[in-house]
């Protein structure tokens, strides 16, 4: 059973293997929609909008909001400030971390409902568990940044999280917090494999903001791999990346 909903301004796809999974899928989508209601900077009624407009304070924020702020702060420290939810205009935009966090939580809900074989893909942030409907490893394709119809790499994440950050379709939605006028057009996308989808997502955002340095930053992190594509169509990969392209039983 596979379903796609449009939440957080992007298609979110969930498949749970087996035909008794409808409640688990519906629960996961309802959870993701609730997260969107709270964290969307595009919705005037969201908690983050209230904080940004000054009608609510960050100190009195909900538990979820506090958790996301804490995660954002942790990521900022771990990435030498390259991940930062403070926009140049002083507003807070936690969307760079909310997606991965929400997908991880949704995956935990599906697992808690007793399902071992499923995936969630929220705009390129992918959590997988178990095997696909054919009993094989899940295969994640890295989209060609120059042709969305094409896949340029096949990854078997073996339960690890996968996330892609890039500028090719959203414009420069990620910028260098240390120099907000710098255009990050040298690199067009970076795909990260990490311990889980949240870890992959937060490091994907930070590594992309680092430009050419990003893939070397990931190389220095144990438990993470990266595949970075530049504007000439040349990919640079971390030394352990190919382990995830060779082990596919497919």
């Amino acid at each position, binding site marked *: 059973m596979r379903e796609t909903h449009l939440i957080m301004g992007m298609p979110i796809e969930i498949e749970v293997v087996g035909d008794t999974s409808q409640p688990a899928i519906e629960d996961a989508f309802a959870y993701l929609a609730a997260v969107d209601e709270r964290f969307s900077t595009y919705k005037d009624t969201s908690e983050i909008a209230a904080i940004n407009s000054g009608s609510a304070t960050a100190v009195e924020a909900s538990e979820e909001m506090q958790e996301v702020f804490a995660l954002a702060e942790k990521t900022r420290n771990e990435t030498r400030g390259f991940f930062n939810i403070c926009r140049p205009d002083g507003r807070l935009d936690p969307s760079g971390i909310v997606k991965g966090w929400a997908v991880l939580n949704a995956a935990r809900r599906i697992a808690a409902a007793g399902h071992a074989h499923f995936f969630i*893909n929220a705009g390129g942030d992918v959590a997988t568990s178990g095997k696909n409907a054919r009993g094989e490893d899940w295969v994640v394709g890295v989209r060609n940044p120059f042709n969305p119809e094409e896949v340029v790499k096949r990854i078997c994440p073996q339960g690890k999280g996968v996330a892609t950050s890039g500028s*090719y379709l959203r414009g420069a939605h990620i910028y260098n917090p240390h120099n907000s006028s710098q255009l990050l057009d040298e690199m067009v996308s970076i795909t990260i494999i990490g311990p889980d989808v949240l870890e992959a997502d937060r490091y994907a955002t930070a590594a992309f903001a680092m430009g050419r340095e990003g893939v070397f930053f990931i190389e220095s992190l144990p438990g993470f791999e990266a595949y970075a594509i530049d504007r000439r169509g040349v990919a640079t990969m971390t030394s352990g990346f190919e382990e995830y392209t060779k082990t596919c039983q497919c």
Partner: protein
Amino acid sequence: MKKVFVSLLLIALIVAYVWYQTFVVSVPRESENAAATTAPLVPTPASSPVVPAAVGRYRDGVYVGDAVDAFYGIVQVQVTVSGGALTAIALLRVPDDRERTIAISNSSLPILKQEAIKAQSAQVDIVSGATQTSEGFIASLASALGQARR
């Protein structure tokens, strides 16, 4: 009439954007500090201008890039273009000719494998790519056209 004009303008913009993505995006552009920080890992663009603006594609051939002083050694690459596409990159010179240099280049910036991307079989369960939204597309279009005007 105004609607027709706006529609035509939008179509023209999209065509220009697609043209830009197809023909201009792959043009190598030298980053000012590339030599200092990333040159050994990032093939430098060939020394001759490989893309005549009017044609917009790479010309077939083998191009040797400038030898670039990467602070701890000289880096030089060679690229092969066939069928208008980048098909191979060879590292002609890398800073590993002295023991001291090897130690520095290994500890500070590891040599990572590179490849020209190419389409794979579409047999995948899931696709990971950057987020796409319509508002983002328009922003991207505007920024791309801004660069194309230069």
